[in-house]
């Protein structure tokens, strides 16, 4: 164990800084930026519906949710019942489905359904974008710089940080303040987010920019349904929710409320 109160000194070659610490940091930042632009390039915007019926299928569910959540602010009992009955019969009979004839059949396998395939490819691409550079850089560091102690932190730390700061250096007695090259890589990997935010603009704005213009109407692009989900089941569940909704209206007594508000104000 390190003797308490005695400063551990290790003589380091200053070249360690120029040839390991600095290159790792630069490489990490550059890959981060490169990855960002690669993601932007390969990102496919969410597909907008191609037919009117498909668009209706997407939005029909939202209509039920809206009615459930907002009816109390607008509708009187009569209007609410009329809308409820319309939506209930629509959900139950499958009138809102893209293809009412296909009702009851199991949903298409996402592996064969081209649309599901596309969504899965998107996810895969995103994951690959993270995985490949990380594997490469880590093996690069492992091959060339493993075992180097390159940095001394200016503040003391408890023994628990040893595994975090000194991975790749198997020395039990080394003070926790010394940081190994592999650990420096991990610290960079986790901690550079704010640097990227600074360089690329907050929240990687370039990423969303191209899509924003495409969305004349954000509601039209929204797809509440995940690929592989059966809209019919969602509709039936929504119909059940709708059926148990109790009607009340905040417009009842609004006159007195307004008078009271202004009397006290």
């Amino acid at each position, binding site marked *: 164990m390190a003797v308490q109160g005695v400063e551990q000194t290790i003589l380091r070659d200053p070249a360690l800084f120029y040839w390991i610490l600095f290159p790792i940091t630069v490489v990490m930042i550059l890959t981060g930026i490169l990855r960002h632009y690669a993601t932007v390039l390969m990102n496919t915007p969410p597909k*907008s*519906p*191609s*037919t*009117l*019926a*498909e*668009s*209706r299928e997407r*939005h*029909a569910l*939202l*209509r039920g949710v*809206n*009615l459930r959540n*907002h*009816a109390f*602010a*607008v*509708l*009187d009992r009569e*209007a609410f019942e009329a809308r409820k009955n319309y939506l209930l019969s629509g959900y139950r009979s499958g009138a809102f489905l893209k293809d009412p004839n296909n009702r009851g059949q199991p949903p298409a396998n996402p592996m064969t359904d081209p649309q599901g395939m596309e969504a899965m490819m998107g996810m895969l691409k995103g994951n690959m974008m993270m995985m490949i550079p990380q594997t490469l850089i880590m093996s690069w560091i492992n091959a060339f710089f493993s075992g180097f102690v390159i940095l001394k932190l200016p503040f003391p730390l408890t023994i628990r940080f040893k595994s975090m700061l000194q991975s790749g250096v198997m020395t039990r007695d080394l003070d926790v303040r010394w940081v190994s090259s592999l650990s420096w890589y991990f610290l960079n990997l986790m901690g550079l987010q704010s640097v990227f935010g600074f360089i690329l603009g907050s929240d990687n*704005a*370039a990423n*969303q*920019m*191209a899509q*924003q*213009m*495409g*969305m*004349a*109407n954000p*509601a*039209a692009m929204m797809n509440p349904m995940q690929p592989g989900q059966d809209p019919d089941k969602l509709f039936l569940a929504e119909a059940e929710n709708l059926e148990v909704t109790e009607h009340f209206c*905040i*417009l*009842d*007594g*609004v*006159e*007195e*409320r*307004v*008078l009271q*508000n*202004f009397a006290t104000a």
Partner: protein
Amino acid sequence: MAFAEAREANGSDLISALHLSQQAPTILGHDPANTGVAPSTSSADTAEEYGQIEQLLLACLRTGDDKSAHACLDRLNHRFGASNERVMGLRGLYQEATAKDQPALKKCLEEYERILSENPVNVPIMKRKVALLRSLNRSSDAIAALIQLLDAIPTDPEAWCELADLYQSQGLGAQAIFCLEESLLIAPNSWNVHARLGELLYVCASSPDGDAPRLAGKSVQHFCRSIELCDDYLRGYYGLILASSHMLEKDYAHDRPSEAAIPSKKTLVQLKSLGLQKLGDIVRSRSVDDQHWASSRSELIAAKELLNRFEKSQ
């Protein structure tokens, strides 16, 4: 928010549109598209900037500065490509605005039909088509096209408001009320739509047939809700005064609250005096700060007239 509201607001808001369009040269001054250079990184490539250019395009079209409008359109085209749906919609708007005569407008319509036959869910073009049909005075066609749009996208509050406006222009009050209610279901806190619905109900209540007392009662309720949501909304107070005095005149009020939608006479009297007092306050404060409220001057004048009318009658 609401199409119909926006049009009315814009109608009186020519002043600010003019101001904006006069800035066209400065905003478009550093224009990479015109000089033939690819969009450089020096000009900020942000959503706000392009939103601003879109606004400028609309303002220029309204003030007759077609040249600047075309420059704006070029710039959007340059950045987003001609096949972008929103850019297509804006280009359609530009062509409509610069069309010389009816045949030119008809040609625009044919163009829209062609685009829609390729991609039936091109929302901006669908909306342009409705607007064009309306300006060609083919209201029933416009209604049909809008219903088709709403059938596919029933969660678009703007479209519901526009449909309500179209129905009202055809004298179909009940349908218009339904549409505004749908719009409110999507955006329940928009006080302007509440007030608009109140106006519609008031108009329907004034017509002889139908369940007038109930409609008038609901109208008062919606005006109240509008005021509750925004306590210096001029149209809300204006409507509240009209609707409550209408109910008092026709003696719809009852002495004890048996039906929920119809308030008692005492409440109505109180509401009316509250409305008159608040409207007076608003008119006074806004007349002082005239320049700031320049865009809604016509509303102010109408409010003053209403107040004078009630002062005389008392």
